């Protein structure tokens, strides 16, 4: 499996993650149902406003799923940032991963690698984490 993602989206995710630091940033990328394509990025509010946790607000979550259904889309990517640890799914990330069809993208903006950052993608299915290749398109 590979995640194909436009460079513009990678940059937007990194910018959002830096802007919302020290809180975790989060969002989704949507695409036409069944296409597997990442075409429309939608930053979400981290309702937890926490450096160690993120959660979409339940009302925003319902609105998002309604919109995705109405437009015939699917959630292709669910992304969030880690502010102090590497870009690898945490135990809580694995426990709450509820979209077996999505790419889980993790970004790390931790101090020790600044100004560099990490951008990695995973599948999380039934508690199993599999890292996948990321292809950035121009």
């Amino acid at each position, binding site marked *: 499996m590979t995640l194909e993602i436009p460079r513009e989206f990678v940059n937007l995710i990194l910018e959002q993650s830096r802007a919302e630091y020290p809180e975790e940033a989060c969002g989704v990328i949507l695409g036409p149902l069944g296409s597997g394509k990442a075409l429309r990025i939608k930053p979400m509010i981290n309702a*937890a406003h926490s450096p160690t946790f993120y959660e*979409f607000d*339940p009302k925003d979550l*319902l609105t998002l799923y309604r919109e995705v259904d109405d437009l015939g889309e699917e959630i292709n990517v669910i992304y969030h940032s880690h502010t102090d640890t590497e870009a690898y*799914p945490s*135990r809580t*990330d694995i426990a*709450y991963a509820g979209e*077996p069809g999505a790419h889980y993208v993790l970004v790390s903006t931790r101090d020790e690698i600044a100004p560099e950052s990490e951008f990695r993608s995973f599948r999380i299915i039934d508690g199993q984490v599999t890292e996948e290749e990321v292809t950035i398109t121009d």
Partner: protein
Amino acid sequence: MSIEVRIPTILRPFTRDQKEVEASGATLAGVIDDLDTQYPGISERLLENGALRRFINIYVNDEDVRFLGGLKSPTKAGDLITILPAVAGG
């Protein structure tokens, strides 16, 4: 008429891959009971020690049941119930 329940991808293995199912009950607890009779095992994914799981969101007609009385939320024929796992992590 019965109550329409939208099932998230992660719970569709219980509903033989159906995205929408029908159920009945006068409260959310009753609807979950009925769902579990039709699709055994599904209630365990929604409840923990008799309460709604923290990271499962359930809505009756677009209203979060946490603001409607939780498991006691009233339900009636024609209602739409949506189940969504939280998008959350650490």
